[in-house]
């Protein structure tokens, strides 16, 4: 496990059920290979993502957070993603005040058919987080 832990960073993804989770499924069905660092949490809508979740994740051990929803104007719930966009954009600007590099947080819009775009997004974001390195000191000593 320690070997695995050394190679991977912790990336949390919040994906809306209707578009991006489906997009990630489409990428899977198409066998689009991706880095394995990402852990996905399914939410009904990107508008359900409380910026607090992202802050908590980053403060508690995540090295990066990715949020993805339906394309603007194509939200399953009419305009949940517009609320998300406003909140997440605000959060992006606030993160440096918490001492967190804003590049550790990324939000995007991916539809259920865009498996290729999902693969690209995960690959790029994982690469970016790896370039930034771990956010937290490794707890090596804990038994």
């Amino acid at each position, binding site marked *: 496990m320690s070997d695995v832990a050394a190679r991977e960073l912790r990336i949390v993804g919040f994906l809306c059920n209707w578009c991006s*989770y489906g997009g990630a499924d489409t990428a*899977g069905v198409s066998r*689009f290979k991706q880095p394995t660092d990402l852990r996905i949490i399914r939410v009904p809508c990107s508008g359900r993502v409380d910026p607090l979740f992202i802050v908590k994740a980053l403060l508690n*051990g995540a090295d990066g957070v990715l949020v993805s929803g339906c394309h603007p104007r194509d939200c399953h719930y*009419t305009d949940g993603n517009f609320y998300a966009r406003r909140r997440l954009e605000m959060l992006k600007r606030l993160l440096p005040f918490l001492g967190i590099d804003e590049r550790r947080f990324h939000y995007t819009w991916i539809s259920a058919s865009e498996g290729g775009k999902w693969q690209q997004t995960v690959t790029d974001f994982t690469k970016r987080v790896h370039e930034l390195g771990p956010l937290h000191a490794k707890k090596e000593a804990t038994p």
Partner: protein
Amino acid sequence: MRVGVFICHCGNNIAGTVDVAKVAEETRKLPGVVYATTYMYTCSEPGQEEIKKAIKNENLDRVVVSACSPRMHELTFRRTVEKAGLNRYFFEMANIREHVSWIGENKELNTNKAIEAVRMAVEKVKQNKPLYSSSFKINKRVLVIGGGVAGMQAALDCADGGLEVLLVEKSPSVGGMMARLDKTFPTIDCSICILGPKMVDVAQHDKIKLYAYSEIDEIKGYVGNYQIKIRKKATYVDWTKCTGCGTCMEKCPSKNSYDHFNFGVAPTRAINIPFPQAIPKKAKIDPDYCRQFVKGKCGVCAKVCPTKAIDYEMQDEVITEEVGAIIVSTGYSLIDIERLPEYGGGRYPDVITGIQYERILNASGPTSGHIVRPSDHVEPKTVVFVACAGSRDKSIGIPYCSNFCCMYIAKQAILTKDHVPDSQSYVFYMDIRSPGKGYDEFTRRAQEEYGVKYIRGRVSRIYPKGNKMIVKGADTLLGTQVEVEADLVVLGTAVISNSDAGHMAEKLHISYDTFGFYVESHPKLRPVETNTSGVFLAGACQGPKDIPASVCQGSAAASKVQALFSKDMLESDPAVAKVNINACVGCLKCVKTCPFQAIKEKELRDGRVVADVIETVCAGCGVCTSTCPCGAIQLQHFTDNQLLAEVNAICLT
């Protein structure tokens, strides 16, 4: 708490790249987990039995299945645990197939990821609460958007089953693309002869209310209870008075209107009835060409109309209707010839599209079925057909096959020989795609009986020389360049989605792909459903398809609506927002942000104002939950605690 975890091998789909035994072993160490096992195919009947047995034997009160995507089998397993006596919300799925085994190459990393995915699901399920659905009444009326062959089939099937149907068609007549076709492959049946009676049935059916020349303005509501705003566009002719006699069309002095029905093969009058079999057979004025509108004076049609139906002052009218389900059958468009500059981009009158040729072949078309070239009205002796004009061409963003061009080109080549016996047709093709009943025999007949010359290769350029069109292309089977002097060139232009397909999808809250075609729930198993319950798809709006496939989908969508309406009440999804009135401070921010107006303010007995959720209207997006400053309104099944449990399962270990 006694959580049971079932880890699926999914044959080799998961077990091939994930060490499932190790996942089970690690899972057993998690607090709360009392049982963890692996199974070859958990979704199979014995697999589900295994879950039920374990719930009984191990006295489980929570279940996690670690397998494919919850979008695939969440409902399956919810039913399983319910049958074993658990609340269906005491169940979670960990997606270790689409999100792990199918995308990761390293078994060790995959296994580790799967273990963490299971841990997240376990932590979430421990926070789950039992939820119970309530039932609500449904409005058993259906809205069908688009009156092509798929929409008409859906409307007729629903109406024959006793449902009230509203059929909204944006053009002045139902019939769609099929009404424009001359003959249908592979039987050379007359298209309008088989479609016409269906169109009449639609008009005469007492359960179908037809809104022709109308569009959808707005769609509100949810499955079982939609409110629809339909815009009846101004025709400037009072259709209650118009008898369809056609006198106005004869006398109209504006003779250069664009003919949408005939795809501009020949001009029409500014006031016109699109075609003789139009349903409804009523006249409409095109204000872009009508002299009364363009120049402010004319009034000929008003003078000659025997029933005084002309009304130049007519305005659009918006009508509100209520329905319980929607079938979308908005059809397709064809790529604009201007996007194909190598084929002249529309500069040469004798390079036409397949659908234009269809109108030229048709007895009720502008040339009365005589094949003549648009430029000089001479009968062509050499006709070249270019398949894949735009289709399967990544350079213009259309990588897909347009499905039916190979077949209609074979048909048109046969018909050309029938009309002009001393003619010779050539077909440039990439591959002949004829995978239907009797289809391949048909394309062979074109070659063997009708002497159509098939040349495998693409056309690189078309240019005029004298009164001929020179078609330059390759013959890849012979490995040579080919040049054909043609009198007429017919392009099998690519099928594309309608230009307003995206806007329509946004009104319906359904997804569409990068090409604008609507996305079905499951490509194999739910081909007519969308991810929005109550909205179904039929016909080419979902992807290019021929007539039998469109009719199939129309009937399938109708049967889905019938099944939905077979009950009087629908079960609501209990995963809706819920207000804790003790924590609510009455700021009512949630009321403002709710996209569905599902939250109202409520005064308590002590005079305090709090938010109150209308359960049947709430769609369960959770925007309110993220908005609430005090965590008082919580989306059930996705509460702050439940999502944070997942976050912590990833981060705090």
